[in-house]
């Protein structure tokens, strides 16, 4: 491989000319004063040789701009170091594809909000067809079968369902963290799973606004997902972790 460049700048029409396009709206009527305001703003972004390609009134109080300018400060590409993610985020179609290729069967995922916690909003955002913020939930994946037990599920019921459905993974949601109740619930669940020798056979995932990856791992779970997690993140981890565990077990 050829040596990586030290200085990287955008390529518009010539090497390292640094040209970028920007577009935005200002909440003021269009006019020469507004054009000047736009120019100053673009300079504030650090761009030089600014040319405004378009100034157009959206209505009497908003103005739309398309402009070009030159970035002058390059980045040193060769010295950039990026931490590799432990797992790759995949798109839903690729996840289905991955399951077909790696497992050759549908996966079964059981989800529940355990303990007295009555909030299904988290588990539903990840599992329900509808999903969250236009990211479809796991139900929409052809190769994943979902059993969503809803809220206020006891650890014992979750265990029974896990056995009954021969689950590949458990998704446990904990929204309420008052007085550390989520830690009590999650600890109880992991104890039961250990006692039943199921812990190693399942991918165990926890989610909730107060959950961090670290906390989840400390409690014995494979992963924890916090606020703003999209279903495909969870699914990506789930399938890759299951494949890894299968590999470690010599597959079945």
């Amino acid at each position, binding site marked *: 491989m050829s040596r990586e460049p030290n200085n990287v700048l955008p390529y518009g029409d010539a090497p390292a000319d640094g040209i970028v396009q920007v577009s935005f*709206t200002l909440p003021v009527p269009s006019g020469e004063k507004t054009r000047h305001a736009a120019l100053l703003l673009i300079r504030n972004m650090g761009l030089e040789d600014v040319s405004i390609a378009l100034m157009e009134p*959206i*209505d*009497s109080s908003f103005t739309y701009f398309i402009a070009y300018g030159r970035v002058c400060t390059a980045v040193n590409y060769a010295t950039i170091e990026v931490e590799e993610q432990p797992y790759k985020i995949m798109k839903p179609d690729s996840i289905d594809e991955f399951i077909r290729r790696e497992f050759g069967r549908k996966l079964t995922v059981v989800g529940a909000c355990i303990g007295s916690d009555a909030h299904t909003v988290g588990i*539903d955002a990840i599992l*329900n*067809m509808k999903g969250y913020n236009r990211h*479809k939930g796991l139900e*929409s994946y052809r190769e994943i079968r979902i059993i969503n037990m809803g809220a206020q599920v006891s650890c014992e019921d979750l265990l029974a369902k896990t056995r009954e459905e021969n689950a590949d993974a458990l998704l446990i949601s904990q929204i309420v963290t008052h007085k550390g109740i989520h830690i009590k619930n999650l600890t109880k669940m992991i104890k039961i799973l250990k006692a039943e020798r199921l812990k190693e056979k399942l991918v165990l995932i926890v989610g909730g606004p107060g959950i961090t990856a670290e906390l989840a791992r400390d409690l014995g779970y494979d992963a924890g997902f916090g606020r703003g997690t999209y279903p495909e993140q969870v699914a990506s981890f789930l399938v890759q972790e299951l494949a890894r565990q299968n590999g470690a077990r010599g597959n079945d």
Partner: protein
Amino acid sequence: MATLFLDDGLLAVARQAAGKIVSDVIEEIDNYTTTAVERAVLRLLGVEGVDAEGIPRVNVIVDDLLKRGVLGGGAARWLANAHLAMGVPVGEVGRRAVNIEIDLLAIPPANGEKLRDRLLDLAAGGLAAIDKTREKRWELLSRLGKSSEPLRYVIVATGNIREDVVQARAAARQGADVIAVIRHTAQSLLDFVPADGSIDGVGGTIANRQNFRIMRRALDEISEEQGRYIFLTNYCSGLCMPEIAVLGALERLDIMLNDSMYGIIFRDINMVRTFIDQHFSRSILAYSGIIINTGEDNYLTTADAFEEAHTVLASQFINEQFALRSGLKPWQIGLGHAFEISPQVEDSFLYELAQAQLIRQIFPESPVKYMPPTKHMSGNIFQANVQDALFNAVSVMTGQSVHLLGMTTEAVHTPHLQDRYLSLINTDYVFRALKHLGEEIEFVPGGRIEQRARKVLSDAVNMLEEIAELGLAKAISAAMFADISRAPDGGKGLPGVIRKGEDYCNPFMQLLHNGRERL
């Protein structure tokens, strides 16, 4: 207009099968009411406000009647009885009951005939309030007029009603005809309507009476300024569907998203609950002159738009029959579909044209709502603008009625002000440039487009016949829609389904479906 040659006999078979599917459901649900329906009835009788803890009074009353095992008679009778005994308005009866100043069940029952008459009078009073908003809409529409179809439909989703107003106003000035206010995330799963007063939401704005009113007032002002009527849209779905229908009717919403199966499939709401709530909601919407939009476009966000096109059509036939049974007129039944075939498919434009034309022809009076590409949007906003242009072309060529504007930033973020602007100029250009193209072309008889349309129709007919045989509940359990299975005894909201007692009375359903005569 270019037309496809379709087999009329096949259309008759489809409607007959859909009619049977719906009859079976209506017969089944007639034995039940729901907590949400009873709350809606109380709202329409004038019970408003919240208790000391901020819980809506209608919830407090209905939950109490449920707990005491008397909800099977319907909530209305208990309040009407107290109202007769005390001589104060029903809203005041509700307030006193919630404050435990009175016990509704302890008041001696009035004479049956007298109670029934008073219930019908009260209900007629409730409907009179809806009459007023309906008349106001007609007055504004006839005075100001509206844009020619396809109407341009845009979404605002700031999460704050005041900011929604700013963006709606800007959109209307740019040419938008319909403003849809996106709801607070997962409001559909709340079993109560959040009290007035809250203006902020997450991912959208809380839908309640106050926020409906704020946006309506703003749009009325902008309608006058622009000299054309601007339509207001919100969701009539989820666990509070009947109550939202009532609030929408009272606050002059013009279009409400209301699908017969969406909540079941996408939100895992119990199907019995959904069908009951939907029937009442649609009865109210029918009376209020509101247009419904069904949600078939949603199937295609998960299932493949090419392979599963017939499920959209089958669902439209079912939605149509449900709607007609609830009293909606064909001009109120805005069936939904979408431009979602993968851009990688050769001739995808032809297939989109076939589907849009097919739906236009089969439902000629429906204010069909056409949804833009969303599934195959990648974040390349420039390519997205081209996809949207093709979508716009199909819409104007086939005469769709309500056109939801595609956003170049689909899959990136909720629309920015400029995204809406760019979409509107794209749409204006295509609508203007291709205005009469549909009148100047013909489909080649037996050509690719016609063959595709016929295939979709015949597959839909087969599917409907299969469902008619199975029953809708079993069909949904068998994942025949959107590849998702839901059981009749599963999903949210089932505890709110109540078997009707022999003395059950819902005076609104009585008036809307049977008139004042005794059943």
